[in-house]
C-alpha cells in the first residue's frame, strides 16, 4: 500500500472513530462546564473555563461509597467467576468425561438468558435465605454472567495447549492438580486475565440485580447511584456527567491497558 493511501485511510479512520465516540467526549466535556454554559445556544464544543465544581459536588454527595461498593461487588464477582470457571474450563477441555457436550450446552444457553427471567425467583430465594441487603446477593447474581462466558472462552484456550506439557510434568512426579496449577495456569494467565476483566465489566455495569436485591442505598454500586442521582441532581447535567465520567473511568483504564488481548478474547469468546 502506498504511503499516501495509508495516510488518507488513517485520517478517514480517525474521523470515523472521533464521530463515533463523540458521545463519550460530550460526557466528559460537559462535566467540566458551568451550569450556565450547558444551556447556551449554540453549544460550546470546548469548555470556556475548566471548572472542577461538578466533581467536587458529586464527591461531597457521596460518590465514594458507591465507588467502593462497585469495586467490592465487581471485584468479588470476578474472583467467584475465576475460581469456578478456570478449573471447569480446564476439566471440560482435558478430561474424557461423560456429558461434556450437554454441560457446554448449559453454559451456552445460560449466557443467552435474560436477567428478568431469574430476577423474581432469585429475589424470593435471597429473601428466604436472608441475603437481601447484603453484598452477597448482587455478587452471586452478577457472577452468573461471567461464568459461562469464561468457561467457553477458556476451554477453547486450554484445548490449544499441548497435552505433552502435563505429561512431562507427571513424569517429573507432578500430580494432576499440581501440573494444572504450576504448569498450565501460568501459560493461561493472559486469557484468565481477559476473562477476569470481562467478568469485571459485566458486574461493574449491572443495575437490575443491585437495585432489586438491595433496598439499602449504602450498598448500591455506581450504576444504581447514577440512576438515583438523575432524580437528585435533576437538570444539573454537569454534575450527572461528572458522576458518569467517574463511573466509566476504571473500565476504560482496564480496557486500555489490556486492549489487544481483550479484543481478541471477546471475538473468540462470543462466537464460540
Amino acid at each position, binding site marked *: 500500500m502506498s504511503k499516501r493511501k495509508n495516510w488518507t485511510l488513517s485520517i478517514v479512520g480517525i474521523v470515523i472513530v472521533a464521530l463515533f465516540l463523540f458521545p463519550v467526549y460530550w460526557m466528559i466535556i460537559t462535566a467540566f462546564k458551568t451550569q450556565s454554559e450547558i444551556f447556551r445556544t449554540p453549544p460550546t464544543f470546548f469548555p470556556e473555563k475548566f471548572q472542577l465544581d461538578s466533581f467536587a459536588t458529586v464527591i461531597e454527595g457521596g460518590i465514594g461509597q458507591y465507588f467502593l461498593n462497585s469495586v467490592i461487588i465487581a471485584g468479588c464477582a470476578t474472583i467467584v467467576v475465576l475460581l469456578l470457571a478456570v478449573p471447569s474450563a480446564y476439566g471440560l477441555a482435558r478430561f474424557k468425561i461423560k456429558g461434556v457436550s450437554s454441560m457446554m450446552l448449559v453454559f451456552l444457553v445460560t449466557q*443467552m438468558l435474560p436477567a428478568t427471567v431469574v430476577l423474581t425467583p432469585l429475589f424470593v430465594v435471597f429473601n428466604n435465605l436472608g441475603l437481601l441487603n447484603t453484598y452477597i446477593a448482587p455478587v452471586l447474581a452478577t457472577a452468573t454472567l461471567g461464568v459461562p462466558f469464561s468457561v467457553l472462552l477458556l476451554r477453547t484456550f486450554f484445548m490449544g495447549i499441548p497435552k505433552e506439557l502435563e505429561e512431562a510434568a507427571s513424569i517429573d512426579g507432578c500430580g494432576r492438580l499440581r501440573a494444572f496449577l504450576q504448569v498450565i495456569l501460568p501459560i493461561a494467565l493472559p486469557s484468565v486475565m481477559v476473562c477476569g476483566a470481562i467478568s469485571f465489566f459485566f458486574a461493574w455495569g449491572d443495575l437490575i440485580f443491585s437495585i432489586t436485591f438491595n433496598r439499602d442505598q449504602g450498598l448500591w454500586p455506581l450504576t444504581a447511584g447514577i440512576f438515583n442521582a438523575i432524580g437528585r441532581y435533576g437538570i444539573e447535567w454537569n454534575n450527572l456527567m461528572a458522576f458518569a465520567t467517574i463511573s466509566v473511568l476504571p473500565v476504560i483504564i482496564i480496557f486500555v491497558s489490556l486492549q489487544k488481548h481483550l479484543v481478541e478474547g471477546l471475538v473468540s469468546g462470543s462466537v464460540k
Partner: protein
Amino acid sequence: MWKEFRSQFKGYLFVLPAVLFMLLLIGYPLIYNIVLSFQNVDLSNLATSDKQFVGFDNYKKVAGEEAFGISIGNTLIYTVGSVIFQVIIGFCLASFFSMKFKIAGFLRGIMMISWLIPMTVTALLFKFMMGSGEGIFNQMLLHAHLIDEPIGWLSSPEVALWSVIIANIWVGIPFNMLLLSTGLSSLPQDVYESASLDGANWWQRLIHITLPLLKPVLMVVLMLGFIYTFKVFDIVYVMTGGGPINSTEVLSTLAFRYSFSDFEFSLGAAVANVLFLILFAISLVYLRMMKKDEGI
C-alpha cells in the same frame, strides 16, 4: 477400569463447581419462575407458605392488559430495528477497517469503548443528548436547518421508541463490527483476485462474492444480536422507564414493573416466561445452526 474411573472422577471435580453454581443460580430460578407464574404470589404471601396454584390465570390476566400487546410489538420493533442497523453499519465499518492501514486495528479496538461503558451510563448520556431544548442532537439539527422545531426525542410517544433504538445501535455497532471483521478476514483472497482479473467491480464483488461467502457469519451475528437485544432492560428502563404512555414498554421492563413496582410477582413471572419462551425458541434455532456449521 479403576484407573479410568479415577481419572474421570478428577475431571468431574474440576467441572462440577461451575455447573452446580449455574444450576443453582440460573437453572433452579428458571424452573421456580415457571412455578411462580402458575401461583398467586404477591407481597402479602411472599414469605409465607400460603401460595395457591391458579392455573393459567396470570397469563390470562396479563394477556388482557393493553400494555402486554404493546410491549411485545415494541420488543420486536426494538430488536429488529437495532439489529438491522447494527449489522449494516457494523459491516460498513468492518469493511473499512479491514483495509490494511497501520492504525486500523488500534482504531477498531478503541471503538469498543461504547460497548464497555455501563448501559446505565450510556442511557443517561443519550437522555442528556436527546434533551428537547438544550440537547446537542436538537441543537445540531436546528443549526443545520434539518429541522424547524426541536424533536421530542424522549417525550413524544411517536419518537421515543426510535430514540432508545438509536442509543442501542450505538452500543452494539463495535461488537458487530468486530465479529464481521473476523469473518471478513477469513474469506479466501484468491477468489477476489480472479474476480478482479475478470473485471468485476466493487459492487459486483460485494454481491456475488463477499455476501454469499459471509452468509454463515452474518447469520450468527444476526441471531446473536437478536438474542442479546430481545432481553433489553437497562437502556429502556433508564432512558424512558417504558413511557411516555407505554410507547417504549418492552417485555423485560413490563415484567420488572409487575414484580417490583406493583409487587405482583406472579404476573411479573408470567411476562418473564413469555420473554423466555420466545428467546428459547430462537436460541434453539441458533444452536442448530452452530451444530451444522461445526459438523458435530
